[in-house]
């Protein structure tokens, strides 16, 4: 991307959030205190400082100590939690993606596997599998006492579970989308199946795998955060959301600092996936957006 375009993107990014802050404060200024109705529906939120803290009080809270009399600012606490969750999410992402790609290869190789498993993969994209989270976790606890102690593994597990499906679906679609003419060429060169896979199918599938990886990145973050919230894992962003959320009535801006952390987590993961995407597609013509 040219320098000019990159600068413009950054400016737009900042501008977008500035606008949101403006709308937030604007609504606070003119909106009804107890919330209101629009078209007969209770659509408008309460505007008191409890429900909608001022943008600057959110900002200030970030730099205040986490607990009264404590030494660490919330910023540090939140960043540490974000870093923790990020590492767990990355592990989940890598593991989930690898498993997904592996399954897709198996399904591409064995037609019966593909026919049997594919409908479940498709269904997994439409059915809210995230609800199985608590179940997965209790399964893990049942399977091994040691695993239960390592609660971060539970978060990894859930992240893997959520990330695995989109990668499997996307990779399989990509592997099957190889142009028949190219396949015939490889056949005529007497290339064995595995070589064809590596030299032709995978490179051809990259443009399908890349968007699937984006979904997997977001999914692994969701899985990790939800696991942290469900299990009350001490170190991650999920835990912060939970506990700060409980303190929201007495200290409203605190919750937003945790939200800030979660946003940073999500965006960092997205940036990582985009970087991977760039590497994978570095020799491809850019799709016109």
């Amino acid at each position: 991307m040219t320098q000019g375009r990159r600068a413009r993107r950054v400016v737009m990014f900042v501008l977008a959030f500035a606008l949101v802050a403006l709308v937030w404060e604007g609504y606070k200024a003119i909106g009804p205190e107890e919330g209101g109705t629009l078209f007969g529906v209770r659509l408008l939120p309460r505007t008191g400082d409890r429900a909608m803290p001022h943008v600057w009080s959110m900002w200030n809270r970030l730099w205040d100590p986490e607990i009264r009399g404590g030494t660490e600012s919330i910023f540090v606490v939140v960043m540490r939690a974000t870093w923790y969750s990020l590492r767990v999410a990355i592990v989940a992402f890598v593991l989930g993606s690898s498993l997904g790609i592996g399954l897709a290869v198996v399904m591409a190789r064995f037609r019966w596997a593909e026919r049997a498993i594919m409908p479940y993969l498709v269904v997994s994209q439409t059915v809210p599998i995230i609800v199985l989270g608590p179940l997965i976790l209790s399964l893990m606890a049942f399977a091994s006492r040691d695993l239960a102690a390592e609660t971060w593994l539970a978060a990894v597990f859930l992240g893997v579970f959520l990330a695995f499906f989109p990668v499997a679906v996307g990779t399989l679609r990509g592997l099957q989308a190889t142009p028949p003419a190219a396949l015939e060429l490889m056949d005529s060169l007497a290339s064995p199946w595995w070589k064809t896979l590596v030299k032709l199918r995978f490179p051809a599938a990259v443009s399908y795998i890349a968007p699937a990886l984006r979904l997997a990145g977001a999914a692994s973050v969701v899985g990790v955060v939800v696991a942290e919230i469900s299990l009350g894992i001490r170190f991650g962003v999920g835990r912060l959301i939970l506990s700060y959320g409980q303190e929201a009535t007495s200290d409203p801006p605190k919750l937003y600092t945790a939200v800030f952390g979660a946003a940073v987590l999500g965006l960092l993961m997205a940036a990582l996936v985009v970087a991977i995407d760039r590497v994978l597609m570095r020799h491809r013509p850019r799709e016109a957006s």
Partner: protein
Amino acid sequence: MSLAVQRTDSTRARQLVSAAVPPLVLGLVFLAAWQLWVEVYDVKPFIIPKPTAIWQSLVDNSDLVWKASWVTGVNAFVGLVCGAVLGFGLAVVTNRFRIVSELIDPLAVTVAAVPAVVIVGVLNNMYALDSQIGRRIMVSIAVFFIVFVQVAKGLRQNDPTQMELMRSYAATPRQTLRKVRLPNALPFFFTAIGTAAPIAVIIALVSEYFGGTQDGLGSKISGTLNGSNKALGFAYVVGGSIVGLLFFAGSALLEYVVVPWRRRRRSR
């Protein structure tokens, strides 16, 4: 003259059946293995219930499951419709101003990256605890961004021949919008709906995890799966899956009916 090849109904039916057999077999094998594992290892029902127990629970509590599914389903539906309408409308209106989509893109990326549970926590704070509004808003937000981005993209992609034709007809920009660009954008709209419908269900579910009224599927599932009546929890999960599948099927059907010409093209 090449016209569309008409397949006979019987070969179509046969193909459907043969496509359905392997996954059914796999599913049955899986359920049987599950059942056996529970029986053989004497797994207690509060850890993992057996499939037959789940079925029993589903039958016994069908009205509970139905009620909870309804609440969640309505939330998802309302959010889906609102988000779709807003997304489509805004994309059309702001199509002339490139800067709007440049501003919305960063927000779309962020909303996609931040787990919905987090945003819901914020919304719960902003709204009274007894209303479903927060959840519907959450669903609308997620759906809005998906639809907006896709429709904006569809409106930007114009078949150059068709645009030249309209120019040769001295058509006004409004006529061009109505007759060419909107119909061209419809497949993109339905792609977005197909993605957004299951997401609407997922978010409606997840947004019930933390506080608020406890009568939807999400809260029931998290409540029961964390407790001891896991069979009931699974029954709720089955209910949630059915809702998700219904939404997906509904959006696929809608696409099939409204945009039939897309069946012929495999465009991304």
